[in-house]
């Protein structure tokens, strides 16, 4: 493993710990397992990426470290999204390598292509990039919110941004899930979509959180219900 990758892995782990609201050195050590390297921590300290407190028992990312980590995580989770949505399978192993080798520009392109997803397939938040803040839209954006379909058009669901697990379960129980084909029937007075043979009326807010593949060939090639 090269040095940069090892450093990155430590930084990523520290970011996860921040998400879980812990900053204990012990947890870092046990989570990194045999990959834990005290030298790397020293390097990170001198690079002003992390700071220690309470003797050396607590460790957390500095502002600089966190900015760097956010880019890594963003790339990692977007990669998962990409692999999961496009290939519909094992996303973890591929994505692990990904974030260490891409440029921020490439990451932004993927983000635009996927229509600025807000969560990875695990449901963890994807840190926003410049492109999300400007909600950049280019011609090649393949995934669009369901609201943008024409009435009567069908498309395959790519992924769903949910505000809560409750909502996710509700939507899932109606079979609106990645891979399912949905048809937009009506926009006004409220949205009506058809999925798996049943008609469902819903708020604009929910419809706009369902993202679908734009290209008709995607829909046709996946017409046999499920992705490979």
């Amino acid at each position: 493993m090269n040095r940069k990758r090892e450093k990155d892995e430590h930084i990523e782990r520290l970011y996860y710990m921040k998400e879980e609201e812990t900053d204990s050195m012990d947890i870092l050590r046990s989570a990194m397992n045999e990959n834990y390297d005290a030298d790397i921590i020293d390097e990170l300290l001198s690079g002003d990426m992390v700071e220690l407190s309470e003797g050396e028992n607590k460790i957390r990312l500095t502002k600089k470290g966190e900015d760097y980590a956010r880019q890594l995580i963003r790339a990692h989770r977007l990669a998962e999204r990409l692999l999961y949505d496009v290939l519909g399978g094992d996303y973890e192993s591929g994505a692990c390598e990904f974030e260490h080798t891409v440029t921020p520009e490439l990451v932004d392109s993927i983000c635009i292509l996927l229509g600025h997803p807000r969560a990875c397939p695990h449901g963890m938040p994807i840190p926003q990039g410049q492109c999300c803040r400007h909600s950049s839209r280019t011609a090649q954006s393949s995934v669009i919110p369901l609201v943008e379909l024409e009435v009567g058009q069908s498309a395959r669901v790519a992924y769903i941004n949910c505000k809560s697990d409750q909502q996710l379960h509700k939507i899932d129980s109606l079979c609106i899930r990645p891979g399912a084909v949905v048809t937009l029937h009506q926009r006004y007075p409220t949205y009506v979509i058809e999925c798996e043979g049943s008609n469902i009326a819903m708020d604009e807010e929910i419809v706009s959180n369902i993202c679908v593949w734009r290209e008709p060939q995607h829909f046709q090639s996946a017409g046999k219900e499920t992705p490979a």
Partner: protein
Amino acid sequence: MSGKRKAKKDNSSGSRPLKRIAIVGLPNTGKSQVFNNLTGEYTLVANYPLTTVEIKRTRCEIDGEPYEVIDTPGLHCLYIHSEEELIVRDMIFSEKPDMIIQCIDANQLKQSLTLTADLLELGIPMVISLNAIDETARRGVWIDSDGLSRLLGVPVVESIAVNGLGTRELKGAISKARRGKWSLRYVDIIDDGISAIESELPEDVSFKRKVAVLLLLADPFLADYLRAEYGQEKVAQLKNKVNRVRRQFRGNFSRALNNKRSRWVDDIVNNTTRKQKITPGESSKVFARLSRHPVFGIPILLAVVFIMFLLVVNVANVIAGWMDTTVWVSVESKINSLVPAGFWNDFLIGDYGVLSLGLANAFLTVLPILTVFFIAFNILEDIGYIPNLCVLTKRIFDKLGLSGSAIMPLVLGFGCKTMATLTTKSLRSKKERYISIYLIAFAIPCAAQLGLNMSILGRMGIMAFVVAFSVLGFVEIAAGMALNKILREEGRTDFIQELPAIRLPNAKAVMVKTYYRLRWFIKEAVPVFLYAAVALFVIDKIGILDAMKNILGPIVNGLLGLPSQMVDALILCMARHEAAAGLMIKLIEKGQLNYVQCIVSVTLTTMFVPCFANIMAMIKELGTRRALTAVLIINCTAIMVAGILNWVLVGLFNL
């Protein structure tokens, strides 16, 4: 709540010869119909979700063995979204039924199998009733029910429940109910986590695996339940464990588990269904789309209401009139010849006679109108037209501060206000609950009232009907907007509402339902008609009625511009709206109510005092104090609105 649950458990363990069958399934999959078919009893069925809001149970014999059969409200999956779903899960967890019959609408196999996955995990023997199999065949979808049975490991019985087809096979399958094949494994880290939590659960918790999974999914209701049963400490301990597992997994459990389950479902569906490549267009789908369409939807709604109105006026009123002239006139003359004028004659056929105001009012005036109206209304229910209204009216409800999920209860209010009040359980926000319960009780007429209102106003012509219902609609919207302003804002419930497929009505089902609705009317309402007549007779004889008419004179005659006989109607209204309607029809026939008075009285009685059952339902959902306050406010508003209406019609339009 937990106390009640425990008591139930003890009861059942005392004597358990009776096997329990729980009928479970997605909303609108025919659970109540299967319940009726199995038990020979009747609970109300309709082609839309939320018809059943409470658990209903009955005992019956199936193939010589006694069973208790339990009908339940709809359930999507064991992760709970709303309180009426919670009722079902609580029942399953606390009573541990010996068997589950899952009703599946063959049109929605995928959605249903998601629930099947959850139910199989419980390890309760199951039978699947695959319903509406005729419709899938028509749509060119073929379901291999044997294959399905093989893959799931439980008997699958095809049926067309509306016609009772498949009931015999279902009864036969009950003895063959089996625990299904549960082959769903997650990744190791999750499975290990589930086992770890399972081992931490208290000894007597049933369905440990499912409980563990639900804890991992952070089901909010389950934690409350465990806290009530086993104390804060145990729950905290469990939460610790859950958090540890969650941290190890470092992802979103809901997504991971749902993905796995979806793939399991997709596999099964792909292996058991075949779709025709070309299918005929379906006119029912076209109608469904038109009925929700912003442009065509409203004319369709108006046409539906107009047809109902014509039916009531031209058929029901004629029958009622005929009954009155042939049956009642001869009875009246008979009694007059037998009983000389005086106390007993008055008691029987006077203004407040048991026979005249009681029996004849119920059977000769109200019953014929209700019969015709119910047939029409039940056809509408079976078609599944009514829920589509929630799409059309969505924007109006937005203005009332109600998110979409409050629409269904309000729309259902046109069927039965009591049931509709109970369905507000499905709303999360207290504010929305309060507003919808209030609005249901206020200016929405229930089916019986709507029919009778049509009959009364129809005697004055279609314009009277249009005016009265426009006023009611306007008042309802104004009340909603006012409540929205007054009450504190809270979170809104998401609006996701499945719409039932439009179906051709089934003649037998409509007739059976009409029969039961009338039977309930006779059983519940007719005694009230009689008591009310006697009560009025008594207070009239001892002079209280006249005193009341004098006291209420300024309001009834002055403010409302109504004759003092309407005081009788208002008193009857408190007992039973139908009785008041019957009396008003009599007043019109005697020429004691004119055009304006007729409109004013109908608007007044529609808004005035919700029926007793509705008040009880309000008390159940809101608590006694708030419910009674609501009733008081409703009555005062009703009188004020009717007063203003009278003033506008007489003063401004010179009618």
